């Protein structure tokens, strides 16, 4: 059963532009000029109940605009959306009871209040009876490990703790779908991992459908079975994570600082991206060479510092375009 259906969805923003300097500002008062920015260009997709879908793309790709249209924050210009069978532009209030939203860049919690008081507040606005809210708070604070700071004002929490509370706040009314817009933005790797584990646990426990936007490949790799990639307002790929991994996430970037210079050439599964004497950057094709193999070539005793990362999303998108041509 599809819980989200999107057909031919488009959104254009009218953005004011003005010429440089005082003259430009004066001119803009009397003769304002606008340009149209097509943020979303006729996209189609659907999401099934209980799925964990990653909706990813670089900055400005149209992913946040799409999630905001799905959650009734923005009106679409064209196309049809059905979320839990409701039209987000028309059935805003009804839809609010069915979905939960969490925007990583926008806090919905009252900062002077404790998470507990915040959860009670969200319970009240969703008309949930007091005893039910209490039970839910207990249950979720155990799942998201909030006990330690549930009575501390939100303004005194760390970013990771706050994000956990934000997610719990959006789950108080037991939504069928949870929309997460950049849930791990600004978090350090350890906290990111923690949040991902909790999201996974929640999906398993409550069978909540999760629609997640991110430009962090790690989020998607760890969480989702299906990936939709958008770029320039269009869907460039809608595929399983397994296929994406096999075709496009099969490379890792190893950035190493060496004690002594080493001589390394391109070989099967290893491509030298940068070699500046003591600083070396290589690309490892993990279908051909394991990371430990690659590290052996560098000699672990010779490494001062090392960073292993995924290929940037922009490069993956470029590869997708190349492979389609």
């Amino acid at each position, binding site marked *: 059963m599809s819980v989200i259906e999107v057909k031919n969805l488009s959104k254009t923003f009218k*953005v004011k532009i003005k010429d440089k300097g005082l003259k430009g500002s004066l001119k803009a008062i009397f003769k304002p000029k606008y340009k149209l920015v097509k943020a979303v260009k006729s996209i189609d997709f659907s999401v099934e109940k209980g799925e964990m879908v990653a909706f990813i793309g670089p900055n400005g790709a149209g992913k*946040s605009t799409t999630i905001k249209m799905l959650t*009734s*924050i923005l*009106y679409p210009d064209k196309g049809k959306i059905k979320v839990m069978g409701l039209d987000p532009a028309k059935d*805003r*209030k009804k839809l609010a009871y069915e979905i939960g939203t969490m925007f990583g860049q926008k806090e919905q919690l009252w900062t002077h209040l404790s998470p507990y*008081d915040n959860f009670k*507040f969200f319970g*009240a606005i969703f008309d949930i009876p007091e005893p039910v809210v209490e039970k839910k708070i207990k249950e979720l604070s155990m799942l998201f490990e909030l006990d330690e700071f549930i009575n501390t004002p939100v303004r005194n929490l760390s970013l990771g703790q706050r994000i956990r509370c934000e997610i719990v706040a959006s789950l108080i009314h037991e939504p069928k779908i949870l929309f997460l817009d950049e849930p791990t933005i600004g978090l350090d790797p350890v906290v990111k991992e923690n949040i991902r584990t909790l999201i996974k646990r929640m999906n398993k426990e409550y069978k909540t459908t999760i629609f997640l936007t991110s430009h962090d490949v790690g989020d998607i790799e760890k969480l989702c079975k299906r990936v939709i990639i958008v770029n320039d307002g269009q869907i460039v790929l809608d595929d399983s994570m397994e296929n994406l991994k096999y075709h496009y996430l099969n490379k890792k970037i190893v950035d190493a600082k060496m004690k002594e210079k080493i001589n390394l050439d391109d070989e099967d599964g290893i491509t030298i991206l940068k070699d500046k004497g003591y600083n070396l950057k290589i690309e490892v094709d993990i279908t051909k060479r394991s990371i430990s193999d690659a590290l052996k070539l560098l000699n672990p005793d010779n490494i001062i510092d090392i960073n292993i990362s995924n290929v940037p999303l922009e490069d993956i998108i470029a590869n997708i375009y190349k492979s389609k041509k």
Partner: protein
Amino acid sequence: MRKYLFIFKTQIISNLQYVGNVLIGFIGNFVMLFILFNLWKYLYSDPSELINGYNMFQMTWYVIITELLWMSLGGRKLVGKISEDVITGNVAYNINKPYSYVGYVLATHLGDIFIKSIVLSILFMITGLVFLGGFPSLTLVNVLVIILTMILATVISTLFASSIGLLAFFFENSRSFWWLYSKFILILGTIFPIEFFPGVLQKILSFSPVFVSSYGPAKLFVDFSWSTAWEILLAQLIYLAISYGICEFIYRKGVRKINVNGG
């Protein structure tokens, strides 16, 4: 209704720590009242003399009540906050919640100014008592009616301020509209009662927001009569419906124009 009461209560809890700020803010109000008190003292050569139907005692209490209403309202802050929310797109994040945005703004703002209004009321009453040596003679029921008109006046002013803030959907700087509106209320009903203006203007003012948001409660405080009370309450109920309608209308028209930063 329960959810709006909860929003109101939550805002009060969230603001309890700012009681100290109210006391500091009152110093400015006190200076203002002191200047006005001395101005009227100078204008009234004899305190029992009547100017446009007001003696000095009534005139000073009138200004104290209208100033109290104005200071408690915090209109400039509210307009600034709403227009900032519209400009930055923050207003969008209230849209997908199961409440009316206008109801939410009203509940949060009233919760925001609740403690401040109580503290200012006590301080203004003490100030009046020190300046004038007593209160107008009022029964407990009179006082309750006056409090009711003051609450309605604040609700109406909040709705007008919110409407002006929401004009940011259509104009880049809605604060200038507030500047005009506040000067209109201040000159034509806060510092001077409407009886001080020429006949034609008096007629116009008695149908304007000045009558319900400023003049009405103060007039009742200094010269209570049941006929005036009913007239003011009826006018306030009509204005309540009008101001709510305007606010909701501007919001509904504007919300379609939302541009949220970063999508």
